[in-house]
């Protein structure tokens, strides 16, 4: 099994893998930032009191959460060209990741905002703060602490989800493994290396998430 594990070939393909790692990294960072923006907007719409803003936001979030990401990716990949929109696969992929993660992030932020005791908002009202001030001075500072650990969890999910982009031939880490498998037919070497790189990213993000969680508990002690 592992006795005939060919390390030489891994070193030969290392530049390809590092390129794939870099690409996975870039895709994840860009989609995470875009997803954060989408999530904040979707959440703001979701908690809005105006029905014509609120219901589209609910529909968006629920549709994204109840259909598989792979179907969403294929929907955009095969669907956008029929609308006459031709963009490179990588942008289609980032768009899909952004829309998918955005819905989850909207729910995470909403849970954070809901975790603030309504009594504090009432206290804010009676102190004469307006809506924006209440949000900015009372809700958001507290909600941020509750939101950060699950957001990092979502970042982990996003990195793993980006592997699905290999199926629409975006040249990222998993795709590198597939390339090496088809060129040399050495699936063990290829996919264990790919798994190893994903584990590296996972452990870094996990450590960050655990650390932020600890900080959060410390703050709750007040």
């Amino acid at each position, binding site marked *: *099994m592992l006795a005939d594990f060919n390390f030489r070939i891994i070193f030969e393909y290392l530049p390809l893998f590092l390129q794939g790692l870099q690409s996975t990294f870039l895709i994840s960072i860009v989609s995470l930032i875009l997803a954060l923006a989408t999530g904040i907007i979707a959440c703001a719409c979701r908690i809005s009191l105006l029905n014509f803003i609120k219901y589209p936001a609910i529909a968006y979030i*629920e*549709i994204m*959460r*109840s*259909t*598989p*990401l*792979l*179907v*969403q990716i*294929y*929907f955009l*990949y*095969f*669907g*956008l*060209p*029929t*609308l006459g929109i031709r963009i490179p696969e990588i942008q289609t992929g980032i768009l899909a990741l952004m829309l998918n993660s955005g819905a989850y992030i909207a729910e995470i932020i909403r849970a954070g905002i809901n975790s603030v005791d309504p009594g504090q908002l009432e206290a804010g009202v009676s102190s004469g703060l307006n809506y924006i001030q209440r949000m900015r001075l009372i809700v958001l500072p507290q909600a941020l602490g509750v939101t950060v650990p699950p957001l990092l969890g979502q970042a*982990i999910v996003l990195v*793993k*989800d*980006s*592997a*699905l982009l*290999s*199926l629409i031939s975006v040249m990222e880490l*998993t795709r590198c*493994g*597939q390339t090496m*498998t088809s060129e040399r037919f050495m*699936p*063990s070497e290829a*996919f*264990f290396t*790919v*798994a190893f790189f*994903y*584990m590296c990213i*996972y*452990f870094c993000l*996990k450590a960050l998430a655990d650390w932020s969680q600890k900080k959060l508990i410390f703050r709750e002690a007040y």
Partner: protein
Amino acid sequence: MMAFYFSRLVEIFPFFLKGLWMTTQIAFISLVSCTLLGFFLGIFRSGGNVFLKRIIGVYVAFVRGTPFVVQIFIIFFILPDWGIQLKAFPAALLAMAIMGSAFICEIVAGGIESISRGQWEAASSSGLTLFQQLRLVIMPQAMRVILPPLVGQYVLLIKDTSVVSVIGVMELTRVGWVTVVRIPEGLMVFSLVGILYFMISYPLILLSNYLERKMAL
């Protein structure tokens, strides 16, 4: 043209229902096996045996740290190297069971650890055996913590069955993928696939929300 493709799509709709049936089968079998395996592992993960705990910890870290596609590729392409030939369907079930049980294991372990030590001590001083302590005292309380995220995890697992299409299992996503080659209306074909997935997973999302409200202490 659109109308023409739509009528074609209606024609081959039974094909989609077949895919839906396959997805349901995979989802059902893997949910049952994930739950059983996940509870089994979770109980040991929260137990006293440090060695077992570490082993399960490594397993969970490996599964949670790598994408599901990569796991499927490892199972489907690498097991034959080691002399284990699996067809696509059993390979898909195996991959689902391995992936799902690791996530459920963490949920169960978290639930059991949320119960205070005093409950274990009280149960053991009442003369209950270890198994009885778990079954009669700990688990009924832990289930309140476990159930909402467990149902949420079920939704994620059902959605993850779409990924097994990569090794050629003829489930819903694969059916869509095959269809879109013949009916080049991506929006229409994958909307249909999406609606069918929505019909399975949305009721579970509602159930998960309901449980979360009901179980909140």
